[in-house]
């Protein structure tokens, strides 16, 4: 019976291999084989000799971490609040969270300029109300990048988290309350552990997506927040040093896989 099922998915596997895996393997191989000269490690050696590209990678990891944390801080309470809503209100809230998916990322990113720029809505309101004299610099720094990335990626965290939260049986919480647990204890001992797997998965997803962000750092970072995908663009389209880009991509992939492996380990420990 097992063999029969495989026959049905074989075309999909072939498609995945030809259209997805093979090009990636080719791309990763670029760094190791030079036309006519065979195997080489010089592109990796180059990375170690001038570590500036690796420092950009480090910077990317740092920004991704900040943006992910911001996402969790905003996303978790949001998902929790949505769980408590009534049916119709809940539908509206979900729609509002999902709506940005239908708006181009470029439009959303530029919209932040209108909202947060020196002459933007927020700064005008702040100055009008007398809270500040000078415009606050929200954009063209790491803060701008974090805000933009958090906005774009929020649904990826909120939706799985919300799905996990509405599956939590209210009677579990009631049982804890009936045994005399205060609300804080109920949250940390019962509710939070039940949402943890979804939170971890969503966080991981957001973090990995952050690593590859291109448009948002380019526009809202004002070119002051170097990220690895912008560097790769330069190496692929301008210079072009595909071999170097391939070496960096390989390291990026390994970092992402290591993070994923770490998550799997934690996950297994938690469920054991």
């Amino acid at each position, binding site marked *: 019976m097992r063999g029969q099922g495989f026959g049905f998915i074989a075309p999909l596997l072939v498609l995945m291999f030809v259209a997805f895996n093979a090009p990636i393997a080719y791309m990763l191989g670029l760094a190791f084989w030079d036309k006519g000269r065979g195997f080489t490690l010089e592109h990796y050696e180059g990375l170690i000799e001038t570590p500036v590209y690796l420092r950009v990678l480090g910077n990317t990891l740092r920004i991704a971490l900040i943006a992910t944390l911001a996402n969790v801080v905003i996303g978790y309470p949001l998902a929790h609040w949505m769980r408590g809503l009534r049916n119709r209100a809940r539908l509206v809230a979900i729609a509002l969270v999902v709506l940005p998916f239908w708006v181009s990322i470029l439009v959303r990113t530029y919209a932040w300029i209108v909202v947060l720029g020196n002459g933007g809505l927020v700064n005008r309101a702040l100055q009008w109300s007398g809270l500040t004299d000078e415009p606050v610099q929200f954009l063209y720094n790491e803060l701008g990048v974090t805000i933009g990335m958090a906005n774009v990626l929020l649904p990826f965290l909120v939706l799985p988290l919300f799905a996990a939260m509405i599956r939590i049986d209210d009677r579990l919480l009631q049982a804890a309350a009936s045994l005399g647990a205060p609300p804080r204890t109920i949250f940390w001992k019962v509710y939070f552990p039940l949402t943890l797997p979804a939170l971890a998965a969503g966080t991981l997803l957001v973090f990995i997506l952050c690593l590859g962000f291109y448009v948002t750092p*380019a526009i809202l970072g004002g070119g002051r927040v170097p990220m690895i995908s912008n560097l790769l663009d330069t190496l692929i389209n301008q210079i072009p040093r595909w071999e170097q880009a391939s070496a960096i991509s390989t390291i990026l992939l390994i970092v992402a896989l290591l993070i994923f492996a770490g998550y799997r380990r934690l996950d297994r420990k938690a469920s054991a």
Partner: protein
Amino acid sequence: MKRRTFVGAAAASVPAFNILTAGLARAQSKEIRMIESGGKSGESIEVGYIEPLTKKTGIKVVRESPSSLGKLRALVDSGQTTTVLFELGSGVMVQARKLGLIEKIDWSAVAPAAMFPEAKNDYGFGYQYFSTIMAWRAGQKEPKSWAEFFDTKAFPGKRCLPDYPHYCLPFAVMASGVPADKLYPLDVDAGFKKLNEIKKDISVWWKAGAQPPQLLKDNEVQYVICWSGRVVGDPAFGMNFAGGMADLSYFGIVKNSKPEDRASAYKLMHEMSLPENQAKAATVISYTGPSPDLDPLLPKDKLAEFPTSKQNKAIQWFQNAEWWADNGEAVNKKWEAFKLSL
């Protein structure tokens, strides 16, 4: 496709077949494909050069965009032969030549009208001049030189500079006191020193040409280095071509493209060399073609806006694409390190 490969192979082995391939080369395609940079520039190619060509010869040109060196390399590496013309910046043109991605132009087949010498390159037809210049929000104190532009004490205001070393560093070097004619080989360290001095006042490093004029309008920054066509003719901006960098966009012939496509591409290049067509293109975009006889055909009140009008061409210097092709990668590493220090 198969037949031509066969003919080509036969011609290579048997000299007598040369006559046959020569006959093929003279044949023209009725439709060719080009990859250009897109936007208004693409429209100007359509209006200025493609329409006259189609009217005269019936040859159609399919445009695609955008163009990047990576795309050209992918085209050639994958062995495709359908695209014949590829738009290249001056530095990219030199790199493409060194990487063997473009082929020599048969200038006798183009038979161009008079052209500025730098536009008539062995490997590229320089079809569009553009300038990288200083500009500011109208009403700001007006800098007269790069030293003044980089002096943020005497000329206070936030700056927006290109996030491309080859559009930015030369001006920083000039600000440190090097005259335009002694700029190359570029004293990269002097340039970074200058940028370091004022980096607190540079709020945005732009990647897209549309950013600097918008940031000026939003009053996010007050002084920018940007492409001339983005700011000329708008009273919201002030600008100065003096000390600016003139540069050229080229069309190159993609390696391994078909001979009959090339024959048609040369016809298009001929149209590109005619001043009357360049004047048409300049109605769409404020960048100009390579004809020295273009000035009289342009509107008199707009001469100050074009990179090649006599008054502007004389006060600018020309980009050194060869130097950047040799040193671009090394400079880029320093550039990334500098960006990390912001």
